């Protein structure tokens, strides 16, 4: 059974994938997630596949409810993206997908920090190929930026785990808390992958650069593995509440004015992670259930949104809002699926976002974090603005772009319809998802108060949209790039580099010159002593010589005694 652990299955499949014909590879991408899920469900709670390596006991499969809910949704996401990517014949992308999904599941199942580190880096290395698979110079550069940041996250994790091992003698991946330099480093390593504010730019930079199918796959794993890692290691760490609250708010403004719809979704992903991070920070059973549930629903509706925008990109060659509009006429199925995704992320009642976000909002209110609660309510209205309205409206409605692309290919439609079905199913029957959650908590999302409050919030936000459109106050879709904090390392630092190099270079030369000139004057002075008439060239008397020798011998004596 050891050899059939889910992450290993994906790795075997990745090797096998290199040998198969293109059609069989596509089938393999569907079969492996199913086998992986079956293998996963065959384990009982506890540690399995414990292998002795490098003098450590490494736990490759640790099953508990928290790990289970994340690895189940990862398997589902891998399966759905396999359907969506049925047409892809690019071997590199297919192998990368298998390794990436397997590594993400491996990371979630890891029972110790070393195993976690191995899979943590594997996700980074495998996923970058989904960006490079676009095969342009620009995507190569973007991929490099992505890889550097992802590997940095892994290096921080490694440094942190070494320090932590030095402190405690344990590599177990249990609750860590911010207690030492080691745990802080691990925390920042997790934070990079979780796209904490100011550590977030890799996400918005790289996801829009990946291939049509690559972005769908990328959106599911890396960040949610980080959320899982935070929930495992830092539940109840108060600083996370505030980090999460900031994360829910600031990406909204950027999403609102971004033109590339896949980047809008990347900002929106960042905002959704904020809700999960708040849940981890609060750390009560209700809040952690909320985080797990929200991650589960989020992977589905975010995949669905990326799928529908991807289908548009596939058919029209662009995902820019300024170039799109009026596509509902010929892509109605994609449009309806996109609307379901939009309703789910906006948390309309009967859609999945509603039954998961409420848990986190309630947890923050019940624990007295009123300001954070209010931030989350405002952010919920913001989610409606960029993901709920902007994505479907400017793609499928708004001004008619005149484009009449064919409907998405049948396999993409199937993937989208299944995902959309799951979003609605979970929204209507939340009990199915709640049963999977880490803790036994009685929670009823469909109370009159909840539904009424949410409907008021969303309908009035919609009304505000109508009002702003009428008044011409809604920002139009224009082509362009919006600066974010990555400007510092993409523009400012490289811009300053030449002047820094010149400055350092010139100061080195001037230092060399001054050393040289000092040396020259010094030798001249010294040689002066030996010239005729200098101190060293005069003849000394016997008396003074004897005195000198005596002094020297005295000194030797003194030093001997010390």
């Amino acid at each position, binding site marked *: 059974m050891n050899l059939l652990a889910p992450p290993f299955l994906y790795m075997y499949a990745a090797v096998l994938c290199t040998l198969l014909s293109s*059609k069989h590879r596509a089938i393999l991408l569907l079969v492996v997630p199913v086998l992986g899920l079956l293998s996963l469900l065959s384990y009982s709670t506890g540690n399995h596949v414990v292998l002795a390596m490098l003098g450590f006991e490494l736990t490759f499969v640790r099953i508990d409810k928290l790990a289970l809910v994340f690895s189940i949704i990862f398997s589902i996401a891998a399966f759905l993206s396999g359907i969506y990517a049925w*047409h892809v014949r690019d071997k590199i992308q297919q192998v990368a997908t298998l390794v990436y999904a397997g590594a993400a599941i491996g990371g979630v199942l890891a029972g110790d920090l070393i195993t976690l580190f191995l899979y943590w880096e594997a996700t980074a290395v495998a996923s970058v190929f989904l960006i490079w*698979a*676009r*095969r*342009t110079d*620009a995507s190569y*550069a*973007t991929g490099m930026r992505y890889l550097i940041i992802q590997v940095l996250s892994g290096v921080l994790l490694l440094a942190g785990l070494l320090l932590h091992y030095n402190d405690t003698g344990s590599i177990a991946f249990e609750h860590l808390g911010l207690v030492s330099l080691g745990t802080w480093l691990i925390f920042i390593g997790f934070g990079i992958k979780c796209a904490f504010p100011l550590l977030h730019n890799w996400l918005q930079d790289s996801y*829009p650069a990946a291939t*049509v199918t690559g972005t769908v796959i990328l959106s599911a794993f890396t960040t949610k593995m980080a959320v899982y890692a935070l929930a495992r290691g830092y539940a109840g760490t108060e600083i996370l509440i505030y980090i999460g609250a900031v994360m829910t708010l600031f990406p*909204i*403004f950027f999403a*609102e004015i971004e033109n*590339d719809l896949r980047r809008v979704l990347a900002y929106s992903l960042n905002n959704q992670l904020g809700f999960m991070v708040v849940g981890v920070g609060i750390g009560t059973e209700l809040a952690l259930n909320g985080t797990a549930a929200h991650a589960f629903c989020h992977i589905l509706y975010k995949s669905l949104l990326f799928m529908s925008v991807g289908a548009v990109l*596939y058919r*029209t*060659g*662009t995902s820019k809002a300024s170039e799109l509009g*009026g596509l509902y*006429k010929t892509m*109605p*199925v994609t449009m*309806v699926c996109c609307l379901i995704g939009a309703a789910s992320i906006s948390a309309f009642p009967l859609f999945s976002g509603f039954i998961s976000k409420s848990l986190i909002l*309630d947890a923050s209110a019940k624990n007295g974090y*009123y300001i954070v609660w209010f931030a989350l*309510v*405002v952010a919920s*209205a*913001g989610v409606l*603005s960029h993901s709920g309205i902007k994505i479907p409206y400017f793609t499928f409605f708004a001004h008619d772009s005149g*484009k*009449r*692309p*064919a*409907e998405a290919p*049948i*396999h993409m439609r199937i993937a989208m319809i299944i995902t959309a079905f799951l979003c609605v199913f979970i929204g209507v029957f939340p009990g199915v998802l709640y049963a999977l959650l880490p803790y036994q908590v009685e929670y009823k999302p469909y109370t009159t*108060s909840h539904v*009424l*409050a949410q*409907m*008021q*919030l969303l*309908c*009035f*936000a919609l*009304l*505000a949209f*109508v*009002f*702003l459109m009428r008044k011409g*106050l*809604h*920002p139009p879709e224009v082509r*362009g*790039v*919006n*600066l974010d904090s990555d400007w510092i390392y*993409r523009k400012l630092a490289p811009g300053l580099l030449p002047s820094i190099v010149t400055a350092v270079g010139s100061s080195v030369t001037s230092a060399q010159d001054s050393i040289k000139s000092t040396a020259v004057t010094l030798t001249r002075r010294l040689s002066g002593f030996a010239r005729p008439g200098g101190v060293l060239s005069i003849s000394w008397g016997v008396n003074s010589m004897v005195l000198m020798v005596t002094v020297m011998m005295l000194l030797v004596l003194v030093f001997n005694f010390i």
Partner: protein
Amino acid sequence: MTEHTSNNSDAKHATNKEQDYTPLAKRFLWADSKHSVEKVILGLSILCGLLFLLDFIIHRHTYVPGEGFPGFYAIVGFLAFTLIVLSASQLRKIILRNEQYYSPHAVDAEHYPEAGLERLEHGEKAKAVDRDATKTGGSE
């Protein structure tokens, strides 16, 4: 980007006639009629009014001080949305740059590579449809 990519797929529906649309698409044609959109907006406004009135009839369970204030969510929803959009427009004035700003090290200004789309040359059922589409587009 539009020049060479859009016409690929235009072929199939180039007619742009309503009767060619699928039944599902026809159900949404109201979106193009100003009159119907007005009706929908009126419907939304009535719904909002009703939801607002319900606040005076139904007592909502609240945890947070002020949450019970009648119309709390309605006001927050409307104001938050408006303020977000307005401040985002201001933000754009500061941070918007030309699409070429990060070129050539960013994908913003580049066309999605046609080869990377892997348009279904090999696909199953969709083959016929897509072959048609690509033939006229002629960019393969």
